[in-house]
């Protein structure tokens, strides 16, 4: 059984919801990525979405774009990110890691080589924002061959037919983008999530994580009540941006602990 499935099964037994933090590998500096990963686990993360920096992150807001720019300034490549996961795995064999980013760095490496390396270093899932089901069939076949879960996005505007299609192709969990906009936007619409969830659950048997617009304990709790997992990205990246290299691990830890407590009230 995959790490992602194991963790969701365990959470279900305990009637808990998954907390899924995101940050960009190499931000603020490459040497802090592995310490941050461990700190997130200690603070209560169930799964970690690790961003692969890209020069043109079209679907992200400026907060995550700046994180990409900081990482790229340090020359962080997809190879480096995979090495970071390998290093993380020497001390942690249970927390799933999902790489999240855009397709082009993977295209440049080659999907087969990438998928093989993911399996070697212990990556569990891959989410490429700009590869919808229409374009990802061939690419994701390489992931599945090596036992890596392709994670798909769904949105408020996704039609029934699209939900059904994603239900057929997705593995691990499905990431529901809770608002129309880019990451880091402010206007979370809880009633929209509540309205959409039955449509999603009609087709999707996998766990559903919800992200975009979750900024604090209140929104984390409210969203946790409606789904299986809560994804928090820009808020964490913002914390990294506002910290120094000395206190960033402690600050992020504190934030994620608070979010954990909130999610556990659901």
């Amino acid at each position, binding site marked *: 059984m995959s790490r992602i499935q194991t963790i969701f099964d365990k959470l279900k037994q305990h009637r808990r919801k998954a907390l899924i933090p995101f940050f960009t590998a190499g931000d603020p500096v490459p040497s802090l990525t592995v310490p941050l990963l461990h700190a997130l686990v200690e603070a209560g993360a169930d799964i970690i979405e690790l961003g692969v920096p890209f020069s043109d992150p079209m679907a992200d807001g400026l907060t995550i774009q700046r994180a990409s720019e900081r990482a790229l300034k340090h020359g962080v490549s997809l190879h480096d990110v995979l090495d970071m996961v390998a290093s993380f795995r020497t001390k942690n064999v249970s927390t799933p890691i999902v790489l999240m980013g855009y397709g*082009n760095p993977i295209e440049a490496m080659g999907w087969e080589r990438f998928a093989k390396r993911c399996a070697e270093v212990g990556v569990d899932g891959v989410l490429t924002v700009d590869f919808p089901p229409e374009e990802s069939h061939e690419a994701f076949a390489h992931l599945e061959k090596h036992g890596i879960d392709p994670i798909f996005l769904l949105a408020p505007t996704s039609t029934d037919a699209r939900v059904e299609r994603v239900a057929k192709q997705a593995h691990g969990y499905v990431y529901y983008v809770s608002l*129309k906009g880019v990451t880091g936007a402010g206007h979370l619409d809880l009633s929209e999530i509540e309205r959409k969830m039955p449509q999603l659950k009609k087709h999707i048997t996998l766990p559903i994580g919800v992200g975009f617009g979750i900024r604090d304990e209140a929104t984390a709790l409210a969203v946790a009540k409606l789904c299986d997992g809560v994804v928090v990205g820009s808020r964490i990246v913002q914390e990294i941006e506002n910290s120094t290299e000395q206190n960033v691990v402690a600050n992020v830890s504190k934030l994620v602990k608070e979010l954990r407590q909130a999610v556990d009230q659901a």
Partner: protein
Amino acid sequence: MYNYPDSTGHFGPYGGIYVAETLMSALDELKQAYEKYRHDPEFIAELNYDLKHYVGRPSPIYHAKRWSQQLGGAQIFLKREDLNHTGAHKVNNTVGQALLARRMGKPRVIAETGAGQHGVATATVAARYGMECVVYMGSEDVQRQAQNVYRMKLLGATVVPVESGSKTLKDALNEAMRDWVTNIENTFYIIGTVAGPHPYPMMVRDFNAIVSKECVVQMPELAGRQPDAVIACVGGGSNAMGVFYSYIDMPGVKLIGVEAGGRGIGSGQHAAPLTTNSAVGVLHGNRTYLMQDENGQIIETHSISAGLDYPGVGPEHSWLKDSGRAEYVAINDDEALRAFHDLCHLEGIIPALESSHALAHAAKIAPGMGKDKVLLVNLSGRGDKDMATVARASGITF
């Protein structure tokens, strides 16, 4: 019969719909609307009326006799897209997309712009049809093209300088996409070039194809026959697709796309992904040749002309290159400037720096051809917007 893209928006292996799920429904809606209206007689009549009476079509073809004579070879003919309302080919497409937006009930249009020509063309039609207009422009380009920025503001548009990334066209495109995904219900994104996710590359090409449709009729009238070669500059490649399109099925007509060689191909500072055989990748919604580093990060490009300063290229050009139907070459900044000055002096036409790249290539190959040979260059825009850039290159300050 040339028949691309396929129903899924692919030109061979290129093109496609590489966007986040959040945009898929909007692209579906657009695809359906375009399919419906492209053959709708009322829509076509409305478009043709505005192209004739508002844009000033058909644009003439002009035989540049003095310049041809001085070069001493092939006869050079210029398709005068610079004479369109707003001064470039860009308006052919913005009229089409704005009319489509209106039919789709979208009161707000957004656009990205590099040189500012597409921004001006969008602001113009937004004013004409009473739509709200927001134009995204890299802050570097805002400085380089201050006059066009003012022009857009005069037309009632809001110009948003984009400070992220390399602060040029590609970053403006990123920002426009972000706006679109946020305001998807009431907003129509008017993309200015033959790139982006399907159906944009096809739709922008179709709206610009009027250029070659006219040429096919005008060339026999003026030159007695079709040209031996059609030459156009390629940034994203919209004016080139426009002037190539009706000639694709005429194998006797050579198609030549001219990319920005910047400070020279060897310098690495250029915007010529096709000429340099850059790796194929995915950016801005489509698969195409892309200027990128070995890790798949998009690299910064350079060209003296803001309109060619783009790391990718429309997917149809990638396909025309691979299929061998079109040939792609690069012209450096200084070669483009030389052609710019020659056309000013010898023909009394001030061309855009973008179009000057196509002119420079014509000047390069014409002397080696017989006097009975015919070259057709798409003079895609006028150069008024480039006064400051050309003056600076000549060491002149106003």
